């Protein structure tokens, strides 16, 4: 293998597993370290800069970072990255002075944002400091999008949402609320320089063809519409026996909300096996904790309506079968259909995009799935001044993806309106700084905690099930938060090797607790991976290959389970290993000066 190009900005970025996995590339270990130092406000602002909604995401993020966390590879459970974000939000001081300044003098360009969810809010936050004038249209009476209308308050209290949405609205967004845009032309006619569409995926899928659907209509609800109805107070109760169909997070919110509105026997029924459910494991756990059974491998057959009332539903019992390519199909067991009694049904079987308000002759090209044709890098549509993002761009995802789209869209819109090159992307801002303070003394705490993951304390369910506004989780207190923070392995503190000074004494090889370091004959990647002292079988993790050392061998480090403990550097007699902190800031519109 060729020597690794450690100057490539993505090499060490990839070593920071969590940050790399985070769609907005939040510098996770950096904020976690600040928690150990009780510097909560700074920790919050690092989050705010990257993911815009730390208090919200610290409660409800889908956390793609946690399955990626290195800690999960050496001890079963990842660092509680998400809930540590909440610790920063819960303990921060007043941040109003730290928010970016918005110039009074505008730059003369006007942008319309359609939809007031996290995507548009991120665009507004990134572009306001550059002097853009921003009109935001939303059909609700406050901003937040699905974070407000869908995510239940027992997971995300309204005051937290209001606070973080407020920071952005108060930066000077012209919000046009309670305004449903019924025509794109209506907007473009106003002469905006650019239009950003982030209207989400607002349509819940129905099971319109199922027998009894029409007759039972009063008792059968589309999950996301029902959840919005609850949030806005149109719906205040549900009958005792409820079936929730679907295996995603919407189903989990529906069933848990039902339990709070009077549902006593609430069941979730899923077509596929449990292991394939889309809902996050922790959401499923929370539902089970609230006495909600989950029945898998049941395909709905019909709604049974008796005397004008819903009596229950018939389900076909199935088993999953896999063909040679591993494709799964659900095959009936042949048993007679199972009847489940119920009074009401919530359908949480998927969400769709819908743009009925965009005229067919608008010039925006849509694909077969009803999604706009976009340049995936710039989010620009077939009309150069119209951009899309969030759930409206590529179908329903989650808040953190929406935020990442927002940052990207802001960059693209800014470049477009400045008449700059749209074919290249701005580079991230990176820096490498030494962590050495003195002999075996480092700026970061390099002792590796052996604590297991701490669980977040919760309110008793006898209380929370009575009040849908009462938050279930209490969050880590400072003390536990700090302990959890110490579980972080500081993956941003990089080991950097200098082949020219190494005397091949093997001290680093011997001390390394996880056998990362090898001095071997060079070869192609596959043979190298096989011939390491412990074969590097995790192909997603990089090998760090050095220039040849004196004997002609090369140093090969498997990044997979490096604990970033710095012992290699402590034991090297020649200073050939250095520990340097790598800070990676993904590009933002307001620092795109290339």
């Amino acid at each position, binding site marked *: 293998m060729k020597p690794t190009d450690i100057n490539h900005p993505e090499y060490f970025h990839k070593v920071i597993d969590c940050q790399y996995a985070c769609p907005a590339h939040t510098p996770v270990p950096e904020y976690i370290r600040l928690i150990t130092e009780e510097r909560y406000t700074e920790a919050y602002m690092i989050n705010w800069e990257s993911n815009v909604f730390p208090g919200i995401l610290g409660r409800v993020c889908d956390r793609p970072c946690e399955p990626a966390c290195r800690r999960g590879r050496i001890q079963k459970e990842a660092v509680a990255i998400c809930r540590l974000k909440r610790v920063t939000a819960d303990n921060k001081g007043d941040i109003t002075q730290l928010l970016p300044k918005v110039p009074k003098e505008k730059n003369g360009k006007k942008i319309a944002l359609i939809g007031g969810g996290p995507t548009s809010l991120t665009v507004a936050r990134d572009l306001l400091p550059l002097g853009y004038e921003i009109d935001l249209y939303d059909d609700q009476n406050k901003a937040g999008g699905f974070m407000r209308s869908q995510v239940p308050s027992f997971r995300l209290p309204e005051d937290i949402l209001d606070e973080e949405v407020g920071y952005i609205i108060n930066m000077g967004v012209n919000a046009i609320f309670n305004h449903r845009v019924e025509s794109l032309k209506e907007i473009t006619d106003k002469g905006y320089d650019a239009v950003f569409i982030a209207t989400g995926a607002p349509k819940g899928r129905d099971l319109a063809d199922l027998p009894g659907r029409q007759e039972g209509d009063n008792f059968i609800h589309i999950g996301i519409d029902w959840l919005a109805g609850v949030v806005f107070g149109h719906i205040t109760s549900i009958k005792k026996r409820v079936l929730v169909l679907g295996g995603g997070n919407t189903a989990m919110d529906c069933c848990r909300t039902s339990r709070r509105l009077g549902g006593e026997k609430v069941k979730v029924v899923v077509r596929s096996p449990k292991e394939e459910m889309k809902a996050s494991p922790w959401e499923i756990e929370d539902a089970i904790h609230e006495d909600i059974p989950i029945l898998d491998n049941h395909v709905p057959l019909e709604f049974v309506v008796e005397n004008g009332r819903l009596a229950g539903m018939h389900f076909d019992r199935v088993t999953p079968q896999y063909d040679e390519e591993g494709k799964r199909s659900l095959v009936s067991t042949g048993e007679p259909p199972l009847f489940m009694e119920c009074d009401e049904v919530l359908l949480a079987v998927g969400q769709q995009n819908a743009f009925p308000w965009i005229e067919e002759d608008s010039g925006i090209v849509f694909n077969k799935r009803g999604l706009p044709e976009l340049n995936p890098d710039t989010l620009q549509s077939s009309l150069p001044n119209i951009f899309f993002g969030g759930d409206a761009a590529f179908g329903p995802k989650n808040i953190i993806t929406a935020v990442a789209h927002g940052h990207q869209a802001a960059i693209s819109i800014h470049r477009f309106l400045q008449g700059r090159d749209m074919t290249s992307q701005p580079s991230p801002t990176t820096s490498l700084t030494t962590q050495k303070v003195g002999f075996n003394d480092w700026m970061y705490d390099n002792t590796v905690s052996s604590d297991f993951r701490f669980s977040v304390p919760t309110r008793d369910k006898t209380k929370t099930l009575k009040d849908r506004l009462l938050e279930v989780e209490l969050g880590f207190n400072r003390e536990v938060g700090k302990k959890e923070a110490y579980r972080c392995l500081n993956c941003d503190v990089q080991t950097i090797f200098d082949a020219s000074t190494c005397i091949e*004494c093997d001290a680093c090889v011997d*001390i390394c*607790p*996880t056998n990362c370091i090898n001095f071997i004959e060079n070869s192609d990647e596959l043979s190298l991976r096989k011939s390491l002292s412990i074969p590097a079988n995790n192909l997603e993790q990089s090998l760090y290959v050095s220039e040849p050392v004196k004997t002609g061998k090369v140093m090969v480090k498997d990044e997979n*389970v490096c604990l970033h403990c710095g012992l290699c550097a402590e034991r090297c007699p020649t200073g050939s290993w250095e520990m340097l902190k790598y800070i990676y800031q993904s590009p933002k519109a307001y620092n795109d000066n290339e």
Partner: protein
Amino acid sequence: MSSSRPGFRHPDLAPNEAGYTIKDYEGGASTLCAGCGHDSISRAIVQAFFESNVPPHQVAKISGIGCSSKTPAYFLGKSHGFNSVHGRMPSIATGANMANKDLVYLGVSGDGDTASIGAGQFIHVIRRNLNMIYIIMNNGCYGLTKGQDSATADKGSISRKGAPNLLESIDLCEIAIQMGASFVARGFSGDKQQLIPLIKAAIRHKGTAVIDVISPCVTFNNTPQSTKSYQWVREHSEATGTFDFIPLQQEIVASYNPGEIAAITLHDGSIIHLHKTAEDFDITNRRKSLDALEEAREKHHILTGAIYVKPDGQDTHDLLSISDRKLNSLDKEDLCPGNSVLQDINDQYR
């Protein structure tokens, strides 16, 4: 501030056949200088005992005084240990071995500990062929007392002090062979690929297994003109042949061309395989082994690998016809069988 090793090990590292993890063979954090060859030997010992499936509590490690003799604190933390007096490791090992011959005895010493103050002990323990592994961490100096030339420092070798050594050096492998050692090898701390199998073979060997391991002292004796520096050893070592150790329990899966392999079967049925090279010699022939050492010496080469093996020797217990039962298990009845037995013995002389 740390230097304490984290508790996690590589998740792919399975326990050995005896059910122990690598951690069960590790010891405390080293306080030796960073880069000291002794640390690498310690690591090789950990690996060799782990791979040999020896239960840690079946090992007794005994050492003298010196940086080298401190290392038992850094490996086999769950084994028995005795850090004895300068140069006296062999007599302590002998005593322990007499009491309980069923343990694996690992003697650890330095070149000062062995070739100067302990030279007499070294010679006589070998003559008795005590069943033990005798590892010398040989850095050509007294590391612990600030790097004075030791008796293994080659004539003309220059340490950090700057003056060439005036005295003739002692070759511990040659002495060991002359004294009748039944297993003699030389390794290099910077070559674990060779060292680990040597230690594994020594564990299985019955009798004294001497391994002289060149182990650079980074602090006092790692100058370019020192013949015990990393650079010098790498440039001047010459191996007796690639070395494989096949423990008894392990099925031999590799197929060798018989002409290219010399196989030596140890006491317990384990096999040492030597891949032949152009300059092959017969490592079971004492005279040829001594010749090979002398020839390498003339060329200023360091001969490494297995140098002499006499697999079927008798150890101290055999030589002295000591009870088959370990002595510490003999109780009063065994030792004082009573008046009638005494009478019977006396009667034989009447």
